Structures are given as C-alpha cells and as structure tokens.
C-alpha cells in the first residue's frame, strides 16, 4: 500500500505544481494583456477625444466664418444671432454652444438649461481668448464639456463662439464600445477636485471612485490596481490638457480614467484554472485507481513472497507459495521454492557431515552425543537399566603411521571401525572421536555384560591381527568405560568419565578399565586447577628452580630445571601435583614452552656473568608429538643468541617408548640443533637399553628407586653396575638421581657413575641462590683438586 501512497503523493505533487505554474503564467499573461489593453486603449481614446474636439472646433469655425452670423453679431441682433447659433449647433450635432461678446458677455446660447446662470458660464469663459485652438474641458452644472472656441472676427476679434460636447455616460459608453475599457471622465470642479462627469462604471463603483477622488486619491503610477466596491480594476489615466500622465492632484482641467476589470481580464484564465482543476481531480482519481491496481499487482505478490522467505528463514522445509503468479513474479516464486529445496538438501548434507566422520562413515563426537541423548530417552522409555560409553584408542597408531605410512594408518582405522561396528548391537552407536580414538555407546540390562562384551572384543583384536596390503598388523586397543543408569547423568559427563577411564587404562596398560569414583575425586578441583594453570602460564606464576648435577668427584656439571608453581594463595607448589594433570589435559605443551623460554633466558643471564651452566629441561611425550616444538626451540635460541650446548632436554623412558617414531624424529632434529637429550627415570619402563641404542640419547638418568639405599653387594648394585657398564659401552653418560646419603654416593662412585644429583649435594634452588652455590662450589672444588694434586 505504501507504493500506492507514493504514487498518489507524487501525482498530487505534480498536479499541484502544474496547477500553480499554469495559474501563475495565466495571471502574468492576464496582467500583461491588461497593461497592453490599457496602453492601447489610452492611445485610441486620446485620438477619439482629439477627433471629437477637432470636429467641435471645425463646427465653431464654420459658425464664426459665416458672414451673416458675423453681421448679426456686429449688428447686435439677438434673434438672428440665436437662430444662427441654433442652426449651426443642430447641424454640427453640438450639445452646447454660446456666443461671447468682446466684453465677455454671453449674448447667445443653446443646449444649456435655463437654470444655468450666466455667472456659471462666465466662470467658464474667463480667459476665453486663451482657449482658442486648445482642447478645453470645463465643468458646468457638474457636467464636463469638451469645448472648442473660435474668435468672431469682424474682422478683428470682437467676440467668441464656443461649441461643446458633454462628456457624459453616453460618450463614455460609446467609447467603451470601441475600446472595451471602462472609461470615466473627470473634470476639475471649482473646489479644485476631480469630479466624475461621465462613466461606464456601475453606480456603486462610480460612487466609490468619486469618494477616492474627493480624498485626492487619483490613481497614480503605472497600472495601479484599485478596488472599487470589491472589484479590482487595473487603472490608468491621462490628462486632456496635454500629454502628461494623470497625476494625483488635479493639475489638469480634465482627465480621462481608463480601467479594466481584473475579474474580466482574468475571467477566462480562471475558467481555464477551473477546467485544469477538474482535469487534475479526474487525473488524481485515475492515479489512485492505477496505484491501487499496481499495489495489488506488485505489492501483494511481494508481500506473499516476503512471507514465504520469512518461513524459509525460520527453517520451515518445503515451503509452498500459496498463490499462483504469472510472468516474472511467477518465475521469482518458482525460484524461491527451488531455492528452499536446495537449501533443505544442503542443510541435510551439512547436518550429516556435522555428525558423521568422513573416513569411517561412523558418527563423530557430535553424532555420538546426539545419539547418547536419544538413547537415554529411548532407554528410559524402554526401562533399559544402563547406558555405557566406551572410549577406545588404538595403541601406537603413530608408529604404524610412521613406519607404514598414513594410508595404512587410515586403513587400520577403517578396519578397527568395521570390527567395532560388527561387534555393536543394532541400537548401539560406534563413533570415531579423533585420530585413533573411538567411542562406543552401549546399552545393556547388566553392567557385567558390558564388561564381558568388551573383554571379548579386546580378545578378538589380540588374537586376530589385521591384514592390510600384505602387512599383518597387531592392533591393540585401550578401552575405558563408564556406565550409568539411563536416568542419571548427561552424555557429556558420561563421555568425560569414559575418557578418564581410558587414560587410566593406557597408563596402566590394562584394558578395559571401568571408571570409578576414585578417578573422579579430583575432577572438580582439577577443573579449577586447569583454569588456574592456564592463568599461571599467562601471569608468569610458574618459576624454575635449579638442582645441580655434579661430577662424581663433586665438580658442578649442570643443573636440572624444575618447575615450581608460585601460587598466589597456596604458595609454592611442587610439580608432582600439577605436571601429571597438565600432561593429561594437554596444557603441558604451553607449560613446557614456558619452561624452555625461561631456561634459555636464565642461561643467557648466567652466561653474561661468566657462568656456563648447562640447563636441562623436562619435556613430555606431547612435546615430542608436537612437530613445531623443535622449530620453536631453535627459533628461541637464535633470537636469544643463546648457546645450544648449554640447553639439554630430559624425557622419561615411558614417554619415549609410547611414541617411539615421533620421539626418534624429534630427538634427531634436536641433536642436529646441538641439543643433548637425556633419558629420565631410566629403569622404570623395562626398556632394553640396546633397543634405545639407535636413539640419539647422550645421557641416562638412573631412577631414584635404584639409587635409594644403594650399597655395595645389593641386587640393585649389580643391576646398576651392569647398566652403567652397558651405557658406557654405548657412549652414554650415566647420572644418578636422588642421591641422599654418603653411602649411596660411595656406592655410585664404585659403580663408576659419571654424575650425581640429590639432596646430599643440593636441593632445587632459585636462580640467585643457585648462582651463589655454583660460584662457591666451583671455588671449593678447585681447592679440593689442588689439595688432591698436592696430596
């Protein structure tokens, strides 16, 4: 409807403007026309009045030239004179005539009523001798008379004869017939005012004009418009005495006022305006009809289609256009419907992709979650008691990828997926979560059944290797699971518990593991810890303490950097409480990077004061898997201008074994960069040392469990001795950790251990204290050595 309103508004505006423009033009034309008419009328009138005067003059001249008349005047014969005057007056159609003697006595007259006194005429004929041959208007009895005067020559001027035409209504009407203008004759009265002698104006208008004139308001200027009895008149005037324009004060004996009724001159235009208005109105009405039609034809379909798009926007499917339209609108409507269908199709595809893992065509994590919710609902409805989520991963898939390539790895994943699928029941869901991780949604009446089924699954994998491209691959699965009553927990919680159980399972190398409460104890505090740990990295709350390593003879050889959490409220926290957690949650990467950055910075600081202290930083399995880690370290070294030989890494035996392929690659890269790597906690992972020989490890650190209580002749002594001998043969350095007693130190010396580390020598120290310790110890060692040399 707005379109219709716009149209109507526009139409109305155009017509209004047209109307005003035309009206204005009309008024200008009328005004110009009136001015022109008055101008021409005035000229015509002058001429007509001149001719009238001329004919009077002619008449009077003929009279005074008549010999008999002159003779009669000379003889002073009134009867003859009068008859001659009457005769000529009638013949020449003069209204008034008289004869004036030499002594200005009226000696004969005609056309004047008897009541007209001689004095009134005497007033008029004063200075009559000057009025010969001039148009001359005099006022007698309120009538303006246009006189012509001629001297009576006998043969000298011995008197005058005058003939006059009364300028009355009749003459005015006569002239109006010729000029189409209203004409008023004005003559100056004795009182010095203009008086109307004849006019074509209506009596009321004439009365008003007379009033104005009496007030001395003769129209002045160029075509002023004056108002007479409510009718406007364009007015002009001229004096009959000469060429002068009519002025306000009557300086002329007589004047003619020419007027044109404005109403009359604008009348035709007013009529035109009326017609135009009617046309406008009809046009506007037609415009309204057209606008409404257009609104129906265009706006209505747009409304309908807008509603359709709104429904599509709200997500309705297969929206139909409720009306049939022709032409372009129809095509547009079809387009909308088509678009809607396409959108639906794509939406389905997107949804499918959102919930499906493209490699295995299993559900992904989102799909699983969705399925768990649905399952829970169904289970509740079916009164099935238990819903379980089993988290699974493929042990050492990375190794398979590294040795056989990713395509084989992918095929392994696919094969595992296939087996899992086969093992699952119809209503259950198997999903691939990420990389080598799977999840299996199980439903069962008995928890024990779930456990049994899992065990048989794992047995199947253990007994039946997967064959891919002529490779027979032993695939081992880790499995952790959590179950709950269908009514209890939500899917996220269940999934989280299963993940924790899986983690425990892979740590313990024992599957399947069911989640129990003990695993969950720290969950909530750990959640808090997680966010706090993140904050700690950002706020630089993690500080490094340094525990010295010494040669077996007591010379300072280096330090191990150990993380301490300078917690704002809990004070200094040791690594035992948060490092394992950080490894589980993956935040260990950020922490390691922080530690490396800090260690390099410290190394540079010490180097500046002349201390070349090798610093060893602990790194985790996650860091080895992080392919950008080596680059990060070398970049850091370069930008800090630190010496790479002063930076060392320590990695646990287990972390190394879990990711042997990635570890080998990472260690080689670090070795190439000039950074040595030590094998930490050696002896806990049961790794054959020879198996490690191909790794670029320059140092092994014997776990404190072997060192503790070490004395000559004990079982650990033999193991340690063998290990040290073997290590030395493999050109590896051996460091003993956790040396706390002099006896242990003595035993280690006997064994031939290269370096020692422990509370016996120094506990982990803050950087400043370590510096002091180092300087003191170095000095002391020099003294001891000298003493020994001397001794």
């Amino acid at each position, binding site marked *: 409807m707005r379109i219709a309103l716009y149209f109507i508004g526009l139409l109305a505006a155009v017509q209004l403007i047209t109307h005003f423009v035309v009206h204005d033009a009309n008024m200008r034309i009328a005004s110009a026309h009136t001015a022109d008419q008055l101008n021409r009328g005035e000229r015509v009138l002058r001429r007509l009045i001149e001719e009238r005067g001329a004919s009077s003059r002619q008449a009077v001249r003929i009279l005074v030239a008549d*010999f008999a008349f002159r003779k009669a*005047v*000379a003889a002073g014969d009134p009867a003859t004179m009068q008859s001659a005057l009457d005769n000529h007056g009638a013949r020449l159609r003069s209204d008034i005539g008289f004869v004036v003697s030499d002594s200005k006595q009226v000696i004969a007259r005609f056309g004047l009523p008897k009541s007209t006194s001689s004095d009134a005429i005497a007033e008029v004929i004063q200075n009559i001798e000057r009025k010969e041959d001039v148009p001359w208007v005099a006022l007698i009895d309120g009538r303006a008379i246009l006189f012509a005067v001629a*001297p009576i*020559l*006998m*043969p*000298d*001027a011995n008197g005058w004869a005058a003939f006059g035409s009364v300028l009355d209504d009749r003459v005015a009407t006569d002239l109006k017939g010729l000029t189409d203008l209203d004409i008023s004759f004005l003559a100056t009265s004795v009182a010095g005012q203009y008086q109307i002698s004849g006019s074509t104006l209506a009596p009321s208008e004439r009365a008003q004009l007379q009033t104005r004139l009496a007030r001395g308001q003769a129209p002045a200027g160029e075509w002023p418009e004056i108002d007479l009895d409510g009718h406007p008149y364009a007015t002009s005037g001229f004096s009959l005495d000469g060429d002068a324009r009519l002025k306000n004060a009557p300086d002329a004996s007589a004047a003619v006022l020419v007027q044109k009724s404005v109403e009359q001159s604008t009348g035709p235009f007013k009529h035109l305006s009326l017609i135009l208005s009617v046309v406008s109105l009809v046009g506007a009405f037609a415009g309204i009809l057209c606008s409404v039609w257009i609104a129906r034809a265009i706006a209505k379909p747009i409304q309908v289609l807008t509603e359709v798009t709104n429904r599509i926007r709200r997500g309705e499917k297969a929206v139909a256009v409720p009306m049939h339209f022709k032409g372009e609108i129809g095509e547009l409507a079809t387009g909308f419907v088509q678009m809607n269908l396409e959108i639906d199709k794509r939406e389905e595809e997107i949804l499918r992709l959102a919930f499906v893992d493209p490699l295995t065509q299993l559900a992904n994590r989102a799909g699983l979650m969705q399925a768990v919710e649905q399952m829970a609902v169904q289970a509740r409805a079916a009164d099935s008691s238990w819903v379980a989520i089993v988290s699974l991963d493929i042990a050492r898939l990375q190794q398979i990828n590294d040795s056989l390539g990713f395509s084989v790895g992918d095929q392994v994943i696919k094969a595992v997926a296939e087996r899992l699928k086969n093992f699952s029941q119809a209503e259950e869901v198997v999903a691939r979560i990420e990389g080598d991780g799977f999840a299996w949604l199980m439903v069962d009446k008995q928890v024990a059944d779930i456990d049994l089924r899992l065990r048989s699954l794992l047995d199947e994998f253990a007994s039946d290797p997967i064959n891919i491209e002529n490779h027979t691959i032993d695939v081992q699965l880790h499995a952790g699971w959590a179950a709950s009553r269908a009514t209890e927990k939500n899917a996220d919680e269940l999934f989280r518990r299963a993940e924790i159980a899986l983690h425990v399972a892979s740590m313990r190398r024992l599957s399947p593991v069911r989640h129990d409460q003990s695993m969950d104890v720290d969950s909530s505090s750990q959640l808090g810890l997680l966010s706090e740990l993140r904050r700690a990295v950002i706020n630089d709350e993690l500080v490094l303490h340094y525990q010295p390593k010494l040669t077996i003879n007591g010379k300072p050889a280096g330090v191990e950097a150990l993380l301490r959490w300078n917690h704002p409220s809990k004070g200094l926290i040791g690594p035992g409480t948060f490092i394992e957690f950080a490894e589980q949650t993956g935040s260990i990467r950020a922490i390691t990077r922080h530690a490396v950055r800090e260690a390099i910075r410290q190394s540079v600081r010490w180097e500046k004061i002349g201390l070349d202290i090798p610093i060893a930083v602990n790194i985790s399995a996650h860091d080895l898997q992080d392919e950008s880690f080596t680059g990060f370290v070398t970049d850091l070294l370069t930008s800090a201008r630190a010496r790479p030989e002063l930076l060392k890494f320590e990695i646990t035996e287990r972390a190394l074994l879990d990711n042997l392929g990635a570890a080998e690659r990472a260690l080689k890269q670090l070795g190439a960069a000039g950074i040595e790597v030590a094998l930490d906690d050696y002896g806990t992972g049961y790794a054959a040392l020879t198996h490690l020989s191909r790794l670029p490890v320059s140092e092994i650190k014997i776990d404190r469990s072997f060192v503790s209580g070490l004395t000559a002749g004990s079982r650990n002594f033999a193991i340690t001795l063998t290990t040290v001998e073997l290590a030395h043969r493999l050109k590896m350095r051996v460091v003993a950790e956790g040396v706390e007693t002099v006896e242990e130190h003595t035993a280690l010396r006997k064994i031939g251990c290269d370096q020692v580390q422990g509370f016996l020598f120094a506990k982990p120290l803050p950087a400043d204290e370590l510096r002091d310790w180092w300087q003191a110890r170095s000095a002391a060692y020099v003294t001891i050595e000298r003493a020994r040399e001397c001794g």
Partner: protein
Amino acid sequence: MSTPRTFSIVLGCMLVLFAVTQGDCWAQSRLTITLKDSQGTPLKDGVVMLQPSADITLASRVTKRDFAVQQIDREFVPRITVTSVGANVTFPNRDAVQHSVYSFSKAKSFEIPIYAGKSPQTITLDKAGLVTLGCNIHDWMVGYILIVDTPIAELSAADGKVVVSDIPQGKYTLRVWHPRLKSGEMSEPLTVSATEQNVEIKVTLNPARARKKPVLDSEGY
C-alpha cells in the same frame, strides 16, 4: 504809417500787454510724445490725439480729407489712416484677385460686393470713431480708419515719436489709440507748459493675433 497801421501797432501792443498780463497765453510750445509698450520698446502706428481745453482755440490740423485705402498683395494699404469727420474714402483694388471690403463698425458700416480695379463706391465718413475694415474673402485682411474730432491726431513713427510743433501752452486731453491697445483707447490730461516738452507714454498691448495669410505662388494665386 497810416491809422490802421497805428491801430495795428496799438493792437499789437495790447496783445503783448495781454500776453504779459495773462501769463503765457500766447506762448507756443514744441511737444514730443514718445509711445512705448510695456517692455519699453518704441511703439509704431499708435495714434496720438490732443484735445485742447475749451479756452484754447486751435484749428484742426488733420488735413486728410478724400483718400484711398488700397488693397495691395491682399493687405489694406495703408493699414491705418487717421482722418476727420466728413472725409471720403475709396478702396481701389490693386490686386489681381477680387476683394469684398466691409465694415461692421458703428462709426460707419458698409459692405462692398466683390470687385476688381477701382473702387466701386466712395464712402463718406460722417461720424467720428473707428472703422475696422475687413475683406469678406480674405479673413486676415484688417485695416483701420480712425475718424477723429480732435484738432491734432498723428500716427507714431517707427521710433514711437509724435512731434507736435507750435501748439499753444495750456491744458489738453491726450488720447492714444492702437489696434492692440488693451483698453481700446486711453486718455489722460496733459498740461503743455515748456517750450520743449517731452512726454513718454507707456501702453499695455494685447498679444498680436496670428494672422494666417497664405503665401501666394509666383503667379499671384
């Protein structure tokens, strides 16, 4: 020397004596009257008339008796004539065209039908007054005959002067007439006492009337 001669001498002596006793009764003066218009320009063609008081006996010096007013080139020639009562006037026509001379004047009214050549009539001017001559055919033609009853009447010359010699001293009435004189004729008393007396008279004139005389072509038409 005879007795009449003696009588004459005696009479002469008596006259002388009379003259002595009677003052300047017998003294003669020369009077110069100058006519001027209101602008002080000497006025030509004015007629100065002197009417002596009753005690002065003065023979009329207006000598023109029988005369002609001719029409030459459609004008009256002379335009103004001064004459005395009883004079006869003729109007010989010297033009190739005809004229019809008339007068509506009270002093003498007449009308001579159109004619050529010599005057068909002789008009006797038997009353004092002004006769204005006109031609019924040519409206612009105007002529004046002033018929005076005063002993002295003379037209002023181009310098506006009228000189009257040898007039007795005493009281006179001075009258002046001119065709354009505003009051028609003016008169004022004048005492002549000096032997050489100059009088200046200022008169007010009507404006000259335009006379529309057509110019004839070379053949006189």
